[in-house]
């Protein structure tokens, strides 16, 4: 069983209605620090306002393929569930890079770094990772220090 114990612990707390993410104390990401498990996407690495902006962008730039509920189709990947497994344990910078360079598929690279960061923030929110006080940076040096890790089971 490779489920991180902390992950299941958080899942248990969610199920019990406890405050999500309380077990994580998220230190501010240091630009020079290597990627470690101490800073993960479960630690509140984006702001609520940023995710809201991402939601707006998603609706007009992404939803036509990935679906309004991020559900995907037979041909287009869902952005929940399996999506988390696909990106977990690697720096969130990988996801940011991919979104920046490959998406939207009909016009890759057409969104600004800030817009792509907002979309990533929205994806984190939609996959159950809590918001923090500061927006997610679009600086690759910062993004490579944050590990993509879920905060509990998908809704």
């Amino acid at each position, binding site marked *: 069983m490779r489920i991180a114990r902390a992950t299941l612990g958080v899942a248990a707390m969610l*199920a019990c209605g406890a405050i999500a993410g309380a077990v994580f104390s998220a230190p501010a990401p240091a630009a020079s620090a290597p990627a470690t498990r101490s800073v993960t996407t479960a630690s509140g690495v984006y702001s609520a306002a940023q995710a809201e902006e991402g939601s707006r962008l998603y609706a007009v730039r992404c939803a036509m393929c990935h679906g309004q509920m991020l559900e995907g189709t037979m041909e287009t990947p869902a952005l929940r569930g399996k999506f988390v497994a696909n990106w977990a344990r690697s720096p969130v910078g990988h996801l940011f890079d991919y979104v920046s360079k490959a998406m939207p598929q009909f016009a890759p690279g057409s969104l600004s770094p800030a817009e792509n960061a907002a979309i990533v923030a929205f994806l984190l929110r939609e996959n159950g990772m809590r918001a923090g006080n500061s927006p997610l940076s679009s600086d690759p040096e910062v993004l490579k220090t944050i590990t993509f890790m879920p905060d509990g089971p998908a809704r």
Partner: protein
Amino acid sequence: MRNGPLARRDMLKGSLAAGGLLGLQACASAPAARLASAAGSRLSKPRLVPMRITPDQLIDVKCCIRPLRAAGPNLATEMVGDTLVVHNYGHGGSGWSLSWGSAEIAVGKALSVLPSEIAVIGCGIVGLTAAVVAQRAGLKVTIYARDMLPRTRSFRASGSFTPDARVALLEPAGPNFPALWEQMTRLSWKTFRTYLGVTGNPVEFSDSYQVSDKPIERRTYPRDPAITDSYATKGLPLQSAEFAHLSSRIRDIVPQAVPLSPEENPFPTPYATRTSQMHFNFASYGHLLMSEFFERGGAFVMRDFHTPAEVATLKEKVVIHSSGYAARDLWKDRTIIPVRGQTGWLVPQPEANYGVRYNNVSLLSKSDGVVVMNNNPDLGDMLGVGNSMELPVRADIEAGLQIMAPLFAPQPPARPA
């Protein structure tokens, strides 16, 4: 031009078909089967082989309970001790039809906590499909169940693509359910298409006729204002209008019924529609799915569960729970409403490869038999609701065959042209 008796018979039938209205009137007054048309007389008229539907052709009668869950299938997650349980049960009469889409959601939730191995409880079509989907995503899967697929309730279904058959009650399911249902249905539909044409025809389409002595109207479900109670007050639905009817959401991919002109109607009834129906052949489909499961290294452990707490004793810490109707007792889910249904099975008749429905009785030719359903009395979605009597009643099937008999009665002697 051929000579001899065959050519003469073709000519007679051709003249009958060309008779148009005259033929219709003759048929309306005398229940004469008109099942084989002259080759080449009209492209639109299908040549159908009559089904043999006398009771001596019955090879099986099966009964099963559909797990109608008022709010629709349970796809929620919960923790039992240190174990994440992803529910995937309560699909009403739509388990087969929704199996792939539902598995996608359940497996997605399981994957979101990054397991390398999971357990699946239940080996009906919903559990087994979820197990295979999890394997396709790279997980090691063990199924824990009382029985393998052929002895589950899934194998006692009729096996047609019916994704909104008693799948939920509209109000308890809430405003988000229709979109979720559509998502599951579309993914399932596309996945079933990947089985079309595979050896053994695990999934296939056939023409499906509805025939009637009265004009055929599209069924609607108006609310009966005289019935003031509902599921909310009684814990059971009381009229068809309470059920979720969602098929209009997938009209763009699922063939719709079209009315047939008298010249196109192969049956001796004045009215008919034709559509194409997707169905599942249990034997080949089940064999294919079980084979994939084992080929991918799946393990099957025969065991029963009696309390939710037992789930946490499994070595796998992520569990997809697909016990179907059994969840009513295992998980104490009293929102599951039993909906009884039964099927009769006539000897396989592959040469009669179609389905027909008449006076609430249906026949559908499948590889493991012609399935007979007698949905009388005509209660719509209320038929069988709340009934957990799971023993088959052969007499009801025989009564259904009797209702269908006029459709296949021998032709009267053909009149000279």
